[in-house]
């Protein structure tokens, strides 16, 4: 082959690839004009060029392109899909009819994903990312914020700044920098994240990939992935495993350090189609997995009504457990099923889990007396499932186990051939342990029929739960040895926390703050089951929580937490002293604590086993200034000793039960608005104990505060004082 022909062939290929320069094209064009053989060569190469692009386009299964497939009757690549040429042509012509109308945009618009959710996100160009915005094949540089995208094939991707990425195709995404997670639904397996260090291939899963400089990590949160690092063999990675590409050692995946797209929780109703049985037991069930409630049965087609799914459906009979019982005056025939969420406490307690409940209803035509109203409901409870019936009975009491409730009602038509559907969307509150799903038929038309419901049906009850997309929560964990916050060796990652970004977890031996620290995110002392955590702010130290993150002193079963304030503490978000845990103690000893724009809540969830206690002690001239304080449940105690001061705009003592106590031994408690729940007690224990309340008070009016209980050794004195032009009352015991 001569050098010249080589050059010309090179030009031909560059022409195909679109990398030819205009001057070169002029040259090629001239050669093509002159040489019939070169034109022949061009046509031969174009043929392969066309075959190749068709080959991959068909493999892609791209929706827009699939729509094009009948238009270009290209031979399918596999034998099984082969059709005789004529049939194919005929089918194509029929399909072609559809294309006589103008197209809605080109199928080659390269639209890869649409933004579903954003938080303060903007591109490098300065443009703010908006919901519904389309992300196409070009390279994107996210300089700020968090976003979630959804692809046409149902893949959800969450990504946060700083990040540089580019969709290469419907199932390939290149990540040059940043953290992302993908939730890949069934049918879209094979989604691949391409990085400089290799490829991460989904095998039906939820996974994260991070690129920071040369360091590339893959983390599996659910399912499996395949990791093809450059220069090494493929590695299969399973749930909760993580790996650095190019390295062998596996470690535990860390979902918190990745942004997370929304994903479904594997929760479903048992026998929502009423196919299996058994027939519902009377009353609210004491366990999960089956229906219970008023008199009802599972039946096949009847009264001209056919089940909407399967061969059977639910028939309501009465507003009582059994038809033999007398009429109760209840207004509805109800069925319940409990759904345990305890396996998903991480998701639930993070907040934003959404439940969607659907049901179909139908009724016999009958007379104008026939009841027409049906309904569905979801109620969230904390507590234990066997006690569900008890919780239900006292659901209207303050501070009951019922956290929230939603429902929907519909009126059905008189046409037995159509089913009417009811839907209900519900945000599952944090702290929910289980859901109660309710299906009911109302007795909205009163009559004297013996059978209260004579042809009322429900079927196809479906429940689906989904999490909300969220940004990452990078965390710093105290490793366990005693020492200074400032020593990077004390932290798990071997570096000091980033106060603006990191959520802080402290467990193990005492962590000492002996200088000024600023934090924006959550700080949890003793975060895990049975953990112990101690934080001491020394006289020289100051901890300033400027963000809205929470301070949690003790979280989860059995945890024991201690916070000692000898220096300064400033909190701007909510503070929980005792939350699901065993023992929590905060001691303001000489130091000062200012809590603004947030509530201080003690003993959030009450008694959690032996020694449960939440204590706040202010002593030795220490002071606490707060906006709002609540001693929610039993065993919450505030002690003011040896000259401590608490100054709060609002204080609520006691919840529904137990022994919430405020004991002033020596020092001052200043409260603008004082409230009591049942079971709250206020003690003045010596002549050095002072209680100051806004307004005019005396012995009698104090006792009239609803639910209040007062304990003092002798009758107190009441002194009217002026504070910034307001009248307050100073209450103390005589010397």
């Amino acid at each position, binding site marked *: 082959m001569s050098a010249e022909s080589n050059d010309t062939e090179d030009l031909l290929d560059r022409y195909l690839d*679109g990398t030819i320069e205009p001057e070169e094209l002029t040259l090629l064009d001239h050669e093509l004009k002159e040489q019939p053989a070169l034109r022949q060569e061009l046509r031969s190469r174009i043929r392969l060029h*066309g075959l190749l692009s068709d080959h991959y386009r068909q493999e892609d299964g791209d929706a827009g392109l699939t729509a094009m497939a009948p238009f270009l009757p*290209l031979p399918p690549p596999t034998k099984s899909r082969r059709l005789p040429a004529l049939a194919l042509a005929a089918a194509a012509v029929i399909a*072609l009819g559809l*294309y006589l109308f103008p197209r809605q945009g*080109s199928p080659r618009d390269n639209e890869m994903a649409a933004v579903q959710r954003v938080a303060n996100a903007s591109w490098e160009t300065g443009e703010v990312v908006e919901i519904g915005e389309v992300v196409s094949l070009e390279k994107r540089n996210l300089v700020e914020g968090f976003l979630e995208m959804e692809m046409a094939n149902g893949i959800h991707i969450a990504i946060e700044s700083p990040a540089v990425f580019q969709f*290469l195709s419907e199932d390939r995404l290149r990540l040059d920098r940043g953290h992302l997670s993908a939730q890949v639904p069934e049918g879209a397996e094979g989604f691949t994240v391409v990085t400089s260090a290799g490829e991460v291939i989904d095998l039906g899963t939820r996974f994260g990939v991070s690129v920071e400089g040369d360091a590339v990590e893959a983390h599996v949160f659910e399912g499996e992935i395949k990791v093809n690092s450059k220069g090494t063999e493929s590695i299969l990675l399973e749930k909760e495993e993580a790996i650095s590409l190019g390295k062998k050692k596996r470690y535990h995946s860390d979902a918190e350090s990745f942004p997370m797209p929304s994903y479904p929780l594997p929760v479903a109703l048992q026998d929502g189609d009423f196919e299996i049985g058994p027939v519902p037991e009377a009353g609210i069930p004491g366990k999960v997995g089956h229906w219970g409630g008023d008199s009802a049965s599972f039946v096949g087609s009847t009264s001209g009504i056919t089940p909407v799914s399967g061969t059977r459906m639910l028939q309501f009979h009465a507003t009582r457990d059994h038809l033999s019982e007398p009429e109760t005056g209840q207004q509805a025939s109800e069925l319940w099923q409990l759904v345990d969420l305890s396996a998903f406490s991480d998701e639930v307690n993070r907040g934003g889990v959404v439940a969607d409940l659907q049901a179909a209803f139908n009724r016999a035509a009958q007379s104008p007396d026939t009841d027409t109203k049906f309904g569905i409901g979801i109620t969230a409870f904390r507590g234990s499932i066997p006690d569900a019936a008890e919780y239900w009975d006292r659901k209207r009491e303050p501070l009951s186990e019922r956290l929230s409730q939603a429902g929907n009602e519909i009126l059905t038509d008189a046409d037995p051939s159509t089913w009417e559907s009811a839907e209900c969307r519900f945000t599952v509150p944090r702290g929910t342990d289980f859901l109660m799903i309710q299906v009911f038929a109302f007795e909205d038309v009163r009559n004297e029929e013996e059978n209260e419901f004579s042809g009322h049906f429900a079927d196809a009850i479906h429940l689906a739960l989904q999490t909300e997309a969220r940004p990452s929560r990078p965390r710093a964990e105290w490793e366990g040895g005693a020492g200074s916050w400032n020593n990077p060796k004390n932290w798990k990652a071997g570096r000091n926390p980033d106060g603006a970004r990191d959520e802080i977890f402290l467990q193990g031996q005492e962590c000492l703050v002996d200088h000024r620290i600023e934090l924006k995110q959550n700080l949890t002392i003793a975060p895990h089951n049975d953990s112990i955590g101690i934080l001491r702010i020394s006289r020289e130290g100051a901890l300033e929580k400027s963000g809205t993150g929470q301070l949690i002193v003790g979280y989860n079963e059995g945890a024991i937490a201690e916070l000692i304030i000898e220096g300064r503490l400033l909190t701007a978000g909510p503070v929980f002293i005792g939350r699901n845990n065993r023992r929590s103690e905060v001691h303001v000893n000489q130091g000062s604590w200012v809590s603004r724009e947030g509530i201080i809540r003690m003993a959030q969830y009450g008694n959690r086993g032996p020694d449960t206690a939440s204590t706040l002690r202010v002593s030795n001239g220490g002071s606490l200034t707060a906006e709002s304080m609540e001693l929610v449940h039993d065993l919450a105690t505030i002690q003011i000793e040896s000259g401590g001061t608490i100054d709060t705009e609002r204080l609520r003592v006691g919840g529904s039960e137990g022994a919430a106590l405020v004991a002033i031994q020596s020092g001052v408690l200043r409260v603008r608005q004082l409230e009591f729940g049942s079971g709250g007690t206020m003690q003045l224990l010596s002549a050095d104990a002072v209680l100051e309340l806004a307004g005019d008070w005396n012995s009698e009016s104090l006792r009239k505060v609803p639910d209040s209980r007062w304990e003092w050794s002798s009758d107190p004195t009441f002194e009217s004082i002026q504070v910034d032009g307001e009248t307050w009352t100073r209450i103390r015991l005589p010397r």
Partner: protein
Amino acid sequence: MKESSDHTTRVQQYFVQHAASVKYFVLSLLPNPAGAEDVVQEVFLTVTAKANDFEEGTNFKAWVFAIARFKVLEHLRQAKREPYRLSEETMELLADEAAGESDTDDLEKEQHLAAALSRCLNKLAPKSRLLIERVYRDGLKPGTVAEEIGWKPNAAYVTLSRARATLRSCIAKQPNTESA
């Protein structure tokens, strides 16, 4: 009216019969597959709209290629890619030669070629195959792929050229794929 719509359907059928030829002709003037696909669709719409202009018994391919040339020019103008087009003269030569090719049904031949391509792709060396995939499946320029996998751009061009040559000669050796 009925006659006219019957005629339109027949013209559409001719188009389908020769769709592969149309596609290859458009690609030879506009090698970008995505652009070519848009143009082919435009051609079909025009063919349908102007079906009555086509006279039975004349060369269908010559008629449709004339429309295709016009649509390619229109596309390049809109995409501001005119410096990247062949001269009218060359386009005409290509059209004449393609229209003059044996007038048999394209469809079956296309099926055989596609099947042959699938078999031949499996025989490519892994790196060549990767390159082909990145270019044809993911729509990347060879230079971009080179950067991605740490090659010099030239190496990617050479590898791609060789891979194409390998595929062409492999396909030619497969049954029922006598070259056009």
